[in-house]
């Protein structure tokens, strides 16, 4: 379908919903339906709104419609020796670009190559007034107007519907190797922090079941040098491990009944958790895989995260209708509510997907 007709069809659905005072739940490949607070709204599928609109490898920029499958984007990039440096998780075969950007979740490379928003250059959206708006663009440096593209990244579709996204892409590294070594979590965290202070070509670190993993990517010579500096054994199953970590298919993830995501300053000391712990992002991301019998109060995670200057998310397994994300201080929540009104005054998009139990305050 040509670009205009497709956008217009979505715009018409939105205007219709506005006139009928309905709420909408934008969706793509349904790969992240588990994530965030549950929403009661009519599904607005963007899956048909697909296609790569512009890809110029020399520009390091790709623009695609929001319903474009992530697999398709990754394949076309790989053909030209490029990649999405933030390694978004798929969590299912149908993941779309829109879902990746709306969720704002990055993979194992996050601590070393940056987050989703670091690579978002521009968006075309429909706001809660049903207006098609364009912010940012396809150039790497752009400071004209507020950075609304980055604000919308990770907003879980609560502010506007994404139609198109422009992303910065990067060349694939010439070489990539994973090394691993046996150690406990405290030693692993120490290693991660030490490595972060050195100019090493590290693109992922993780600790899982008494093994510390470190991925090195770059020029062959640089990777080779780093291996001898870091030590450990070359792990030939490295890429399988990183995919399983990113997609949460490691046994610790699949066995968990409730999964907590703790995003903390990397230097935060480890604490005893009620379930199995997985570390990644140089220590800045800690997964707690809770077993059913050990489930503890959510406020314990939130209080802890607040104390150490981070935030906790009940990533999987929260009871429907309950809070999922770290509670915000009241002034900050109030600003979130004002911004929700600024984009979506009728609470059309995903009301309550992020916070709040009543329609008046839900966002």
């Amino acid at each position: 379908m040509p670009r205009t007709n497709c956008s217009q069809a979505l715009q018409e659905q939105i205007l219709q919903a506005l006139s009928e005072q309905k709420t909408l739940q934008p969706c793509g490949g349904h790969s992240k339906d588990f994530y965030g607070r549950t929403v009661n709204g009519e599904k607005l599928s963007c899956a048909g709104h697909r296609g790569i609109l512009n890809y110029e490898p020399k520009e390091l920029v790709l623009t695609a419609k929001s319903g474009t499958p992530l697999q398709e984007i990754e394949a076309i990039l790989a053909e030209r020796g490029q990649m999405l440096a933030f390694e978004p998780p798929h969590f299912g075969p149908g993941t779309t670009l829109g879902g990746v950007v709306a969720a704002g979740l990055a993979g194992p490379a996050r601590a070393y190559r940056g987050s989703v928003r670091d690579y978002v250059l521009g968006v075309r959206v429909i706001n809660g007034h049903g207006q098609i708006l364009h912010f940012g663009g396809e150039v790497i440096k752009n400071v004209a107007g507020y950075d609304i593209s980055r604000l919308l990244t990770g907003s879980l579709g609560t502010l506007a519907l994404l139609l198109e996204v422009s992303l910065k892409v990067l060349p694939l590294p010439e070489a990539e190797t994973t090394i691993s070594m046996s150690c406990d979590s405290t030693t692993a965290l120490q290693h991660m922090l030490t490595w972060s202070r050195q100019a090493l070509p590290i693109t992922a670190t993780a600790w899982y079941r008494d093994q510390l993993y470190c991925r090195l990517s770059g020029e062959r010579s640089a990777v080779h040098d780093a291996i001898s500096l870091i030590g450990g054994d070359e792990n030939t199953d490295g890429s399988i491990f990183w995919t399983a970590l990113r997609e949460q298919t490691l046994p610790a993830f699949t066995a968990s009944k409730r999964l907590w995501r703790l995003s903390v300053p990397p230097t935060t000391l480890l604490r005893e958790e009620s379930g199995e712990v997985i570390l990644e992002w140089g220590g800045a991301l800690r997964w707690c895989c809770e077993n059913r019998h050990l489930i503890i109060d959510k406020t314990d995670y939130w209080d802890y995260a607040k104390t150490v200057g981070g935030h906790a998310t009940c990533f999987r397994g929260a009871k429907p209708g309950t809070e999922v994300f770290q509670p915000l201080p009241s002034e900050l929540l109030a600003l979130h509510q004002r911004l929700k009104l600024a984009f979506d005054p009728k609470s059309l998009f995903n009301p309550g997907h992020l916070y709040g139990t009543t329609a008046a305050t839900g966002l």
Partner: protein
Amino acid sequence: MTRTKHAQTCDPVLLSVLQKILPDDAIVTTEEERRVYECDGLPMFRQLPMLVVLPDTTGQVREILQLCHAHKVPVVARGAGTGLSAGATPLADGIVLSLARLNAILDLDPQACTARVQPGVRNLAISEAADPHGLYYAPDPSSQIACTIGGNVAENSGGVHCLKYGLTVHNILEIHLLLMDGTLLILGSSALDQAGYDLMALTIGSEGLLGVGVEGVVKLLPKPVLAKVAMAAFDDVSKAANAVGEIIAAGLIPAGLEMMDGPSIRAVEDYVRVGYPVEAAAMLLCEMDGNQVEVESQMVRIEDLLKGCGATSVKIAADEAERAKFWLGRKSAFPAAGRISPDYYCMDGTVPRRKLAQVLEGTAQLAEEFQLTVTNIFHAGDGNLHPLILFDANKPGELKRAEDLGAQILLLCIEVGGTITGEHGVGLEKIQQMCVQFNTEELEQMHRVKEAFDPLQLLNPGKAVPRPRHCAEYRLASGMKSGEDPHAKD
């Protein structure tokens, strides 16, 4: 250029409360001293402020904002005043809030690779403090000796290393933001993401319209083991522009990739004598960094690529001293222009890299039309152009001509799919061109964002985002159709 208004006299009630909050030397009332603040780094925009205050604690900043909020007095926050888009131009009925005295590095944590800083800390001072730990702060705008981190955050400043290391937005972890009513918000943290909306990303580059940053945490990076720079001369500008694309297409991400045209090369060489190729029509500086073996093997590839793209000579700096010399030339480009012309006006558009040659050619044509000289020295790797318009403000009409030419160059950037500002910001300078880059509904959306932060419109009003009514007038005057979407691609 703005019409300068007569600065208002400060309400005595407001002044007396300010005197209770601040010591005497922190309130600037005399006209002579206020003159110092009448412009930023773009002196063609001037306005004497009503009053200038220089608090030295966060508590004072908060009280000043609360007071101004209660009295409905507009506030323009200011760092070192090095901005190039008139973003810190004062208001005749407003207060300039200088953050220069909040200049402490509160904490530097080499373990976490972070520094906690106040807004008035100079950009370079952060890297200097981090240096003993083998760390540095990556964004390096050319004013880095003087400019402050608070100003960098307001403008989302770049520099010569953006392609590899990003802009300010990629290098800040936390911001303590005061809203106009004195509410303190902590955005971001030393963790790598936050709960809720990414308000820190929204705040960075918001040109002081959403809040006043009073503290922040910046990311420090380990210094690369080795950096090497190649200098390539070309007999044709488009060959140099093409080489930029070829380097990137080869999968290389230079730490810096800068281009200068012939007139810039000669102006610089006359000024600092660094061995630039004065016969060339254009030159590239291409820097790679990393470990020893990596950089050396990459430089071989770079040299081959540059020669393959028609470089007439390629010289790789033999040692650190020569590397510093090559960069000194680049860093001296603006003062060098100052030597050959009484005045210069630096523009700041970004275009897709493949359009570089076309835009340079278009700029040269426009320069001829306006009978002015334009030299080019810019961040080619980012497609971020800095056409330098040379003029003499003492010659009647030249300043106006320079401004008009600048406006035309910006329109050209939009036309080829670029943007009117890559790193200098909109300020007052590019407010008209915002009406071209964005349509009415987009601007209204931005105003609603502003209202969510600052409903009384007291923080740096009139900058960055034009009023739709203002745009309607501009579009009418410039012959655009009302309501026309200038960048509709459908």
